[in-house]
């Protein structure tokens, strides 16, 4: 979440899509309700089913699973067409005015420029900004000069009405001299009628007075952005990866045909209400109603109101999931809703600590704090740091904090936390000990390798590998081929008893050679530690009951395994014992480290006395906890397990244990309740809640503001900004981007499948993509080639769209072991529409068989009017939904009272190329009566 749960109460408008918070986040759903009750906020719910969230909504639209980008793209188009955008915000806080390189092509045919069909990947050379300074909309020759490349083609903005008044100034700026006065006097574009672009009256000083000409050569710039998907860089090659230009060309009139705003406009002009209807199944008039309602927060140029977007895995679980969220982010930037109380793009995390897991490096390609994993080309620390530390890339007159410049401090402190005294300057702080990954290791990759017989063993800690992944049959067959499997769980589950899966006979079982070790773990109430919630709060929890029987704490199990492995390396040596032998393990009880000790380690401490010239008189003594990440150093004098958590356990104690309920602003900030990363900021990018002069857009919801007399940013929240950067410097509010602004256009390798979102059909879809039938799917989505990775087509009879989800009554695959939950919803079911039931002659409660190209699933039918058939591209299309919770282990399962198939027998191993999330939503099945 960019904002937080409680903050939702500050909103005026909610778009809940790709999520079902009433069912899956009932406690947090209090806040949308609160907004409705106290602010008369309106709630729009868009979902394939009429959910319990929809039951409380003002407006519900049924959408076809997998059509989200079309819907959101339609909203973007509507907002632009109807001038419902936050003009000043867009101009000053996003890259709308930045020029994109010559040669960049929008995906009118489904492909962006640079597609390489053989490798199914993109060469991202053209997905970059043009270098240079200010560029006038009409001066095409100058543009070419600045770009240093081929002349611009076409006539830029022939329709633009007179940029006359300022064109000479622009011309001068654009001529490769430095643009500095460009902020003044731009002629407004059609959509920017009332805008006097960033007019604080004080033109800022030009930052780096560099000419635009030879900037393309500065290979050192923007190295951070050049990191392609892991492995790509590893292949090496003569050409150095492209990087962001330090001095970006721009046109503040937003008229230049290659400026981000015009490209965006063009990209989404194809998403007309008619196209939206064809793709999503949402009737044009319903779509327009929703579009009007959602964008009404920017009616008549008003900036006071705020809209929020709330989503969950209904967006991520597609082969284009990341791009759905991108579309939402672009929409929110256009409406000026990011960084503001009651606004933002808010991911609801589906487990109590999934945010914490991600922050601590839960994905294979990141270390804690989102530091990048090294790859084999990173031969030493310097190379790695050069690749992963971004250099500023901005427009000349603006300033950019570029917080990731501090990457070396975070990385070295992390290495010190890992290897302690063994991490020395001389040995690159132990950088050589780190694994360098040469390929992807996402969940589906692992199972694919295992299925190929290449991965021999698996530790499954608190994750039901068989049930949670797509294509369960493949996962089960893969486990059959493994040599060993270790499962740490609180119940016997589908993974630890994978040989009991339906379809495996007694005879087959004899042939399974996998050795399974089952470790009894402790449940969440049986251990202390922190949960990090969706709002990024670290909240300490205490033990409620001791673990029963032989069950042990996770850290004890892990510690004992580690100590044993280290002992073996000590005794027997091995190929490369150093990383294990040198790992710092200085806990009071090495066999069972206390989590408070670990939490302190994560916060980080000083290893030598630290002083800071900006804070004279303050010394952090060696051995003391650091107060925050600003104190971390890259010379080995600090250690820190995760820089974003730095500040959570300081000398003042465990901040995560704070329970202060003061809320002076009444906005639900609760500064003294627990601790929120980063630096206890509750709303990210909150600088954007103010206009360029540092005054809040809405005086009634003041978060932070510029205090002229104190010459710093102050407020109800911790400013997510350089505290002493005055508004006149025009530092961008999005301090984690090297440009300092919000990215409408995401350059270079930020995303594998395009700098703009584009609607692609799910891997299995009832129709060809109406936008470009020849390129129906995401061209870079990952598919696998094993004999079990099959895809179905409507022609083969798979013509029903299927989506999967959770119920409020159950929690993933655990609660089927709990009588209370079993009582609430005793058995699996399939939700089907009354129309489909009539067509098939199915009655509620009758058993039906759902099958996909990969497997089958049998359960009782729930016949309902809450799902309806839809007209998709002129074709009547049925959708069904299946809750995921059941399998072959649990109370009812053990009693033999329910079907035994896990739902994921049906879902395909098709993967989003950015986040590696499988397509659990919107695949094709057929439905039969049993």
């Amino acid at each position, binding site marked *: 979440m960019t904002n937080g749960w409680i903050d939702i109460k500050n909103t005026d408008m909610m778009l809940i899509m790709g999520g079902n918070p009433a069912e899956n986040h009932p406690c947090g759903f209090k806040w949308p309700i609160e907004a409705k009750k106290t602010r008369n906020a309106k709630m729009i719910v868009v979902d394939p089913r009429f959910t319990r969230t929809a039951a409380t909504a003002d407006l519900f639209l049924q959408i076809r699973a997998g059509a989200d980008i079309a819907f959101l793209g339609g909203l973007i188009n509507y907002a632009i067409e109807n001038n419902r955008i936050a003009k000043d915000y867009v101009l000053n806080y996003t890259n709308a005015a930045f020029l994109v390189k010559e040669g960049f092509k929008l995906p009118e045919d489904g492909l962006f420029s640079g597609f390489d069909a053989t490798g199914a990947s993109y060469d991202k050379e053209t997905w970059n900004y043009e270098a240079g300074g200010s560029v006038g909309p009409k001066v095409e020759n100058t543009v070419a000069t600045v770009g240093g490349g081929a002349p611009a083609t076409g006539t830029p903005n022939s329709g633009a009405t007179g940029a006359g008044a300022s064109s000479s100034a622009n011309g001068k700026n654009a001529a490769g001299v430095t643009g500095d006065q460009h902020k003044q006097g731009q002629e407004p574009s059609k959509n920017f009628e009332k805008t006097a672009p960033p007019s604080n009256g004080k033109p800022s000083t030009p930052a780096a007075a560099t000419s635009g000409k030879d900037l393309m050569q500065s290979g050192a710039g923007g190295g951070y952005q050049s990191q392609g998907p892991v492995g790509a860089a590893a292949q090496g090659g003569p050409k150095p990866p492209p990087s962001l230009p330090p001095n970006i060309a721009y046109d503040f009139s937003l008229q230049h045909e290659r400026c981000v705003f015009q490209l965006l406009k063009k990209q989404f002009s194809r998403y007309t209400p008619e196209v939206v209807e064809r793709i999503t199944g949402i009737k044009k008039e319903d779509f327009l109603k929703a579009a009007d309602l959602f964008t009404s927060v920017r009616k008549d140029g008003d900036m006071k109101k705020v809209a929020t977007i709330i989503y969950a895995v209904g967006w991520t679980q597609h082969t284009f999931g990341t791009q759905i969220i991108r579309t939402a982010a672009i929409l929110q930037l256009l409406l000026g809703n990011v960084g503001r109380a009651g606004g933002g793009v808010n991911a609801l995390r589906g487990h109590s600590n999934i945010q914490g897991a991600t922050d601590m490096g839960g994905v294979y390609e990141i270390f804690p704090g989102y530091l990048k994993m090294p790859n084999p080309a990173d031969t030493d620390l310097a190379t790695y740091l050069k690749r992963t530390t971004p250099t500023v890339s901005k427009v000349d007159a603006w300033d950019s904090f570029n917080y990731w410049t501090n990457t070396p401090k975070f990385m070295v402190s992390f290495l010190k936390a890992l290897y302690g005294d063994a991490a020395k300057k001389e040995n690159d702080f132990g950088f050589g000990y780190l694994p360098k990954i040469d390929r992807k290791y996402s969940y589906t990759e692992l199972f694919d390798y295992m299925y190929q017989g290449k991965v021999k063993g698996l530790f499954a800690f608190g994750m039901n590998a068989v049930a949670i992944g797509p294509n369960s049959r493949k996962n089960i067959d893969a486990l059959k081929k493994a040599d060993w499997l270790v499962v740490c769980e609180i119940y016997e589950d589908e993974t630890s008893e994978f040989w009991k899966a339906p379809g495996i006979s007694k005879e087959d079982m004899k042939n399974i050679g996998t050795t399974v070790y089952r470790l009894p773990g402790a449940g969440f109430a049986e251990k202390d530690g922190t949960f990090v919630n969706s709002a990024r709060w670290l909240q300490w929890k205490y033990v409620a009951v001791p673990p029963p029987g032989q069950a042990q704490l996770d850290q004890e199990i892990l510690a004992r395994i580690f100590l044993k492995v280290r002992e073996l390396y000590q005794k027997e040596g091995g190929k490369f014992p150093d990383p294990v032998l040198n790992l710092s393990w200085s806990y009071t009880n090495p066999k069972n480290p206390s989590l408070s000790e670990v939490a302190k380690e994560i916060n980080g401490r000083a290893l030598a006395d630290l002083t800071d010239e900006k804070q004279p008189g303050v010394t952090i003594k060696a051995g003391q906890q650091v107060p925050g990440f600003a104190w971390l150093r890259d010379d080995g004098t600090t250690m820190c397990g995760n820089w974003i958590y730095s500040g959570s356990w300081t000398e003042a104690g465990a901040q995560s244990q704070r329970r202060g309920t003061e809320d002076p602003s009444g906005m639900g900030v609760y500064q003294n309740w627990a601790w929120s990363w980063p630096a206890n900021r509750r709303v990210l990018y909150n600088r954007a809640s103010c206009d360029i002069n540092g005054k809040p857009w809405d005086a009634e919801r003041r978060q932070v503001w510029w205090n002229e007399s104190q010459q710093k940013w102050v407020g109800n929240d911790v400013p997510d900004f350089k505290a002493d950067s005055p508004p006149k410097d025009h530092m961008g509010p999005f301090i984690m981007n090297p440009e300092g602004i919000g990215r409408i256009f995401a350059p270079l390798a930020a995303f594998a499948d395009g700098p703009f979102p584009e609607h692609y059909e799910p891997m299995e879809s009832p129709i060809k993509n109406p936008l470009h039938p020849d390129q129906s799917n995401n061209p870079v989505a990952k598919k696998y080639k094993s004999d079990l990775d099959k895809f179905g087509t409507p022609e083969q009879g798979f013509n029903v769209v299927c989506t999967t989800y959770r119920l409020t009554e159950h929690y993933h695959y655990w609660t089927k072991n*709990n009588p209370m939950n079993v*009582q609430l919803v*005793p058995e699996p079911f399939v939700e089907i529409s009354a129309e489909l039931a009539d067509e098939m002659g199915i009655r509620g409660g009758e058993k039906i068989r759902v099958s996909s190209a990969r497997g089958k699933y049998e359960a*009782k039918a729930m016949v309902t*009017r*809450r799902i309806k058939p839809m007209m998709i591209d002129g074709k009547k299309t049925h959708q069904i939904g299946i809750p995921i919770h059941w399998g072959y282990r649990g109370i009812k399962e053990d009693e033999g009272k329910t079907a035994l198939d896990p739902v994921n027998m049906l879902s395909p191993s098709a993967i989003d190329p950015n986040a590696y999330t499988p397509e659990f939503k919107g695949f094709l099945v057929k439905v039969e009566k049993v």
Partner: protein
Amino acid sequence: MSDERVLQIQRISGHPGPVPGRGTQRAVEVCKYIDVTTCIGCKACEVACVEWNDMPFRETTFDNTYQTMPSTEWNYWNLIKFAEHERDGSMMWLMRKDQCMHCEDPGCLSACPADGAIVQYQNGIVDFQQENCIGCGYCISGCPFDIPKFNQATKKVYKCTLCSDRVGAGLEPACIKACPTGCLHFGTKEDMLSLAGTRAAQLKSKEAQGDFVMPNAGVYDPQSIGGTHVIYVLHDITKPELYGGLPAAPVIPPSYTIWKWLAKPTGLAMAMFGVVDARIRRARPHACPAWGTPAPSRLHAIPALVCGDLLHALAPVRLRHLLAVALSLADAHLRRRADDALPAPLVRPLLRHRVSLPVHQLVRADDLDKDRQQVRPAHERVRLERREA
């Protein structure tokens, strides 16, 4: 401890003459206010109720709905009723928390022939005292909301107590405590009526709701039975039946009013003459087939019961049931159920659930319970009984 916590008896069932101790103390009327427009059907209240009252596991089966079971049960007092409706092309999924309404004029109490089996406290809570219950089941037909339910094992009737044990100790009912959205409120009837009124006004206000105004929103507090101590805000107060069969104008069957004035004294008179026969229960609709488990015998006056039975058939309450059936039939194609999918109300008392209310909450409640001498811990008794069952 404060006197306010004490539950004072206002009326009791089947008791001739003045109510002992009545009116000696003034207590505020309590009330539960349920904002149906913000209920999300999460069933946290169901779970809290089962947990707090320590109910045994009840086996359920899939019934083409999200609703846990068809109606409340002797060991399931709090049930979200789910109802799908389509109006002007748009869908409504109504979720109403169904439980005892704690009527100002309780039909159950009027119908009950057993001395002290049903009491109404001054604060409005209607509570069953199972040790006085004779298992005749009259309260069941007397209730316009179909709430009290018979337990075949103990031969007694049970229903929501509005957590009289918690309320008596100054706590809110367990369901209120658990509700995550805050659609449940608890307080004095006066306060709740004003809260509910404000909310209904908000829903009706064109200015606040724009296109999404609900002109028929309103507060459900049926005056036909003198009001209830559980009130609802409904999207459409003109059609309460849509919400899982909430009666628009609930009435106590006239038979029970007659019964109260005529049959009860007659019965008692007969009882005094010793015409007592416990086996009469055999004739009751809910009589237990497992004859032989003796129910604690109280007054079983044949004429009184026969008289009541005769009137029974005529009681409008039956009509109401018919209506309810008709309504659900209208919806039948949605609730079509395979022949084998009928719920089987089996009791599996040995399985204990694992999740419970937060420990500190229990501790707090227990502490308060310690010095609660004035109120008879009826629930202790009930719990013991249920465990035996």
